[in-house]
C-alpha cells in the first residue's frame, strides 16, 4: 500500500515536472521564435528563468528519496475529472447562453442545474424539485434587485433578460 502510494507520488511529481517543462518550453518558443528582441525582452527573461526552474524540478523529481516517498501521498485522485466534468460543462453552457438569453435567465437555469446535478437525487419528489426552483428564483431575483435595480450594473440582456 505504502509502496504504491510512493510510486503514485513520484509519478505525479514527475508528471508535474514534465508538464512544467513543456509549458516553459512552449513559452520560450513563443518568446524567441519570429519575435522582436526589444519588444519581447522581458518575456524572454521570464521564459528562460522558467525553463531553468522546470529543469531543476525535473531533476529533483527524479532524485526523490525512497524514504521521503514513503511518507508522501499523491494529491491526484482517480475519478476526479468525472466528478467535476458536469460542472465544467454547465460553466461552458452558462458562458454560451449568457449572450443569447441574457444574464439573469441563464443564471437561473445554471443555478438550478447545479442543485439538481450535484444535490441529492430527488427527481421523483416534486416538493424537493419545487424547493430547488424556488431557491434558484430567489437567488437570481436578489441579484437582479441588487445589481440591475440598485447599482444599475448592466449585464447582457439577450432575448429575455
Amino acid at each position, binding site marked *: 500500500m505504502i509502496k504504491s502510494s510512493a510510486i503514485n507520488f513520484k509519478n505525479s511529481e514527475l508528471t508535474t515536472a514534465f508538464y512544467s517543462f513543456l509549458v516553459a518550453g512552449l513559452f520560450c518558443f513563443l518568446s524567441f521564435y519570429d519575435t522582436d528582441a526589444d*519588444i519581447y525582452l522581458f518575456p524572454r527573461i*521570464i521564459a528562460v528563468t522558467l525553463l531553468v526552474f522546470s529543469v531543476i524540478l525535473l531533476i529533483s523529481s527524479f532524485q526523490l528519496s525512497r524514504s521521503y516517498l514513503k511518507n508522501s501521498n499523491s494529491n491526484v485522485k482517480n475519478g476526479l475529472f468525472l466528478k467535476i466534468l458536469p460542472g465544467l460543462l454547465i460553466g461552458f453552457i452558462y458562458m454560451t447562453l449568457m*449572450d443569447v438569453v441574457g*444574464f439573469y435567465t441563464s443564471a437561473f437555469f445554471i443555478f438550478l442545474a*447545479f442543485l439538481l446535478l*450535484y444535490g441529492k437525487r430527488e427527481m421523483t419528489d416534486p416538493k424537493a424539485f419545487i424547493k430547488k426552483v424556488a431557491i434558484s428564483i430567489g437567488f437570481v431575483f436578489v441579484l437582479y434587485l441588487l445589481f440591475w435595480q440598485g447599482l444599475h450594473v*448592466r449585464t447582457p440582456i439577450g432575448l429575455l433578460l
Partner: protein
Amino acid sequence: MDFLNYFGNVFTPYHLMLLFGGTTAGLILGALPGLSPTMAVALVIPFTFHMEPASGLILLGAMYTATVAGGAISAILVNVPGAPANIATALDGHQMARKGRASEALHYCFLSSFVGGIFGIIILIFFTPPLAKLALKFGPTELFWIAILGITVIGTIGNKSVIKGLMAGLFGLAISTIGDNPMLGEQRFVYSEHMESGIHIVVALIGLFALPQILTLLEESGKSKVGIYALSETKWITSLKYNVTRIKALTLGSTIGAIVGIIPGAGGQIAGLVAYDQIKKTSHSPENFGQGEPDGIIAAESANNAMVGPSLVPLLTLSIPGSPTAAVLLGGLLIHGLFPGPDLFTVHAEVIWTFIDSLIVAQVFMVVIGLFLSRHSGWIMKVPPHYMAASILVLAVFGTYSIQSSYSDVLLMGVLGITMYFASKLGFGPAPVVLGVILGPLAEDNFLQGKLIGEAGDGIFDYFFTGTINLTLILATLGSIAYSVYASHKMNKRVMLK
C-alpha cells in the same frame, strides 16, 4: 495625527451600510468551510469598480477583517477551519464545543479578534507614513527589485515546494506580458481577439481564486456532513468578564500577530500557530491545551486579527503584500488608480486615511455582528457545497463581465480558472500567480526604464546591482529563498524521521 482628520468620512450612512454589509458577508463567507478570505475579497473587487475609491476600499477592508474572524466559526463548531489562519483556533475551540461550550468559545474568538484587530490597526497608523517616505528614495531599479522581492516572498514562504512557488510567480509574470509592451506599445502573445487588451487584474483574480474553488467544492459535494455541536446559552457579558482577565494571552497574541503581519508573506496562518505555541509554552498548565483551554483561542484569534493591519504596512508603502489576501487588496488599490508609496499619504490622503479609519469601525461591527452570529451560526455550517459552488459561479461571471462589459473577459477568466485548478492539483498555488500578474507591469516598466538609464550611464549591471537599497533588496530576495529552502529541507527531514 492625520488619521483623526478623516474619521468623519466613515460615518456617512452609505459607508456605514457598506461596513455593515461587508462585515456580515465577510463573517458568513469566512465561516463557510473551504471558502478562503482571499477568494471572498477577490470576488468582491469587481463590485467596487463602480464605487468611489474610498467606498470600494472600505468594503474590501471590512471583508478582509471579517473573513479572518469568521473562519473561526467553522473551526469551533465543526473542526474545519474556515481559513488556514484558523487552524490554531480549532485545536481548543472545537474541544470546547464538544464539551457544550461552543457559544463561550465563539465569544472569546470575537472579543479577542477585536482586541488584536485594534492593536494591529494602531501599528498600521503609526508605522505606515514613515515607511512610505522611504519609498521616495526608490528609482526604477529599486522598484524592479521590490516587485521581484514581493513575488519571491509570496512564492517561497506560502508554498510547500519553493521551486513550484517561484515558478507560479513566474507564470503570473508571463501572463502579465500578454498585450501591449509598456514602452513600445507593440502587442505580444495576442493570438485571438479576446486577448487584445491583455488580461485585466480582476479577471485574473477571479479566475485564479474563484473557479478552482468552485471545482473543489464540486469534488466535495455528496460527502457526509460533520455533526454540529449545540450552541449553549452563555451570556456574552460573562465571556467578556473572563476575556479581559486573560491579559497575557491577549498581549502575547496581539504582539506576535503584529510582528508576523509586518513580515511580507508570512500571513495569518503562522501568526495564529506561533501565538498558540507561545501561550502553551509559557502557561502554568500546558496540559490543558488541546482539551478546550480558552487561552488557546484567545491567543490564536487575537494574533490572527492583529496580523491584518500590519500586513497592509508593506503593501501601502512598498507594494509588498503581507499576506495573500493583502496581495488581492493590492489589485483593489490599483484598479482605483491608487499606487502604493508616499503619494498615497499626500495626493490620496483622504482616501487612504478614510480606509484606515474604516478598519477601526469595521472591528466594532465585526465584534457586534460576530457576537450576534455566535448564537445563530449553526445554519451557516449546513449550506451544502454545491449551493456555494453555484452562487460563486454566478457571482464570478457577473463580477468579471461587469468590469469592462466584455464577454472576452469572461472567457479568459474561465480559461485561467480551469488551468489554475489543474495546476493546483500539481502543487502550484494561486497567490504567487496573482501577485505575478499584479506586479508584472511594475517589474517590466521599471526594468525597461532602468535598462535605458543604465545604457546611458555606467552600464546596466552597475545600475541594477549597486546601491544600498538595491543590494538590500537583492539580499532579502536571496535570503527569503534560502530560508524557505532550509525550512522545507528541515520539514522533509522531520517527516523522514517520523
